């Protein structure tokens, strides 16, 4: 019997399993972030905008496709709404009724106390707080993609090809 290498197929299946695992882990973080964004960032978080949260940032939370690079595989979870970054890292917010011209005038005059420091962290705590859940979700999805568990799945057959199934 001629030797046949199954390495390409195995490599391909492991790549697919890694992708499935990353997507499952990303879903954990996305859910946690969306939960945190349910009430929005508060009044006038969008400029100019309505007084009540619109769900804009929550609806914008998304993830990339799994990518494979020199240092391993990764997936990105994020948003394209820029002010989510400001809220996450902190910023000085002018009152809602301040036009840009008035902001400049106040800055020049040195009336510093018109600004408020705002920060509401949601993304970073969601990531660090779901570390264990992410790994568990990755593990389940990875094994399922490789056919893990159950009849006929990976690990359910004996190691030797000559053993009865």
């Amino acid at each position, binding site marked *: 019997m001629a030797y046949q290498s199954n390495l390409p197929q195995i490599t391909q299946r492991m790549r697919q399993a890694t992708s499935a695992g990353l997507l499952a882990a990303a879903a954990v973080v996305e859910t946690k972030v969306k939960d945190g964004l349910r009430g929005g960032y508060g009044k*006038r*978080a*969008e*400029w100019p905008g309505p007084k009540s949260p619109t769900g804009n940032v929550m609806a914008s939370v998304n993830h990339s496709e799994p990518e494979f690079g020199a240092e391993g595989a990764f997936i990105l979870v994020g948003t394209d709404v*820029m*002010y989510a*970054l*400001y809220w996450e*890292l*902190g*910023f*000085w*917010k*002018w009152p809602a009724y301040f036009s*840009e011209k008035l*902001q400049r005038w106040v*800055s020049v005059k040195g009336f*510093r*106390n018109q*600004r408020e*420091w705002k920060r509401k962290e949601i993304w*970073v705590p969601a990531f*660090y707080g779901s*570390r264990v859940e992410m790994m568990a979700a990755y593990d389940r999805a990875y094994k399922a993609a490789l056919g893990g568990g159950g009849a006929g799945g990976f690990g359910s057959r004996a190691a030797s090809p000559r053993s009865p199934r």
Partner: protein
Amino acid sequence: MSTASWTGVLQIARSRLLTFTPPNAGATLATRLGSTSTGSGSDGKLFLDQAPDNIEGLWAILRMIDAPVQGFDGGNLIRGQFELICYGRPRRMAAQVRACADVAQQAWKYYSYIETNGVFIADHVTSRFTVPYAEPADRELVAERVLLPFRVVPSYLLTVSS
């Protein structure tokens, strides 16, 4: 300054960042940021967790954002992450803000602190970027964020017996 408490660990990191002298006789972070007359800013405007509301010019804030216990040595190793954000206002201070972040990155590159029953090791910086503020944020504020990972085996854990 010691690892006998978590406050001590924070002070180890803060002291390193403020007192490190860059190569070629550059200015320390304490010199660049300046100081206030009292409080934690009196030795350099690098504040822990929060800065005073009326701050202006150059300043920085150091925060612990993650500190899980990891490893297999009985729960003594903590692999944590600091967030350092260097601020400047108005916007014409952008170059000085970036220079402060440069000094912080240099200070963190090869640093370790060792004492009896305790060790603090700085790992290399993993992330750095400039925050691109636009409305509704105050655009005159310049912020450069640096993540500073580290490992610590604090003596307040090692000295506890069962």
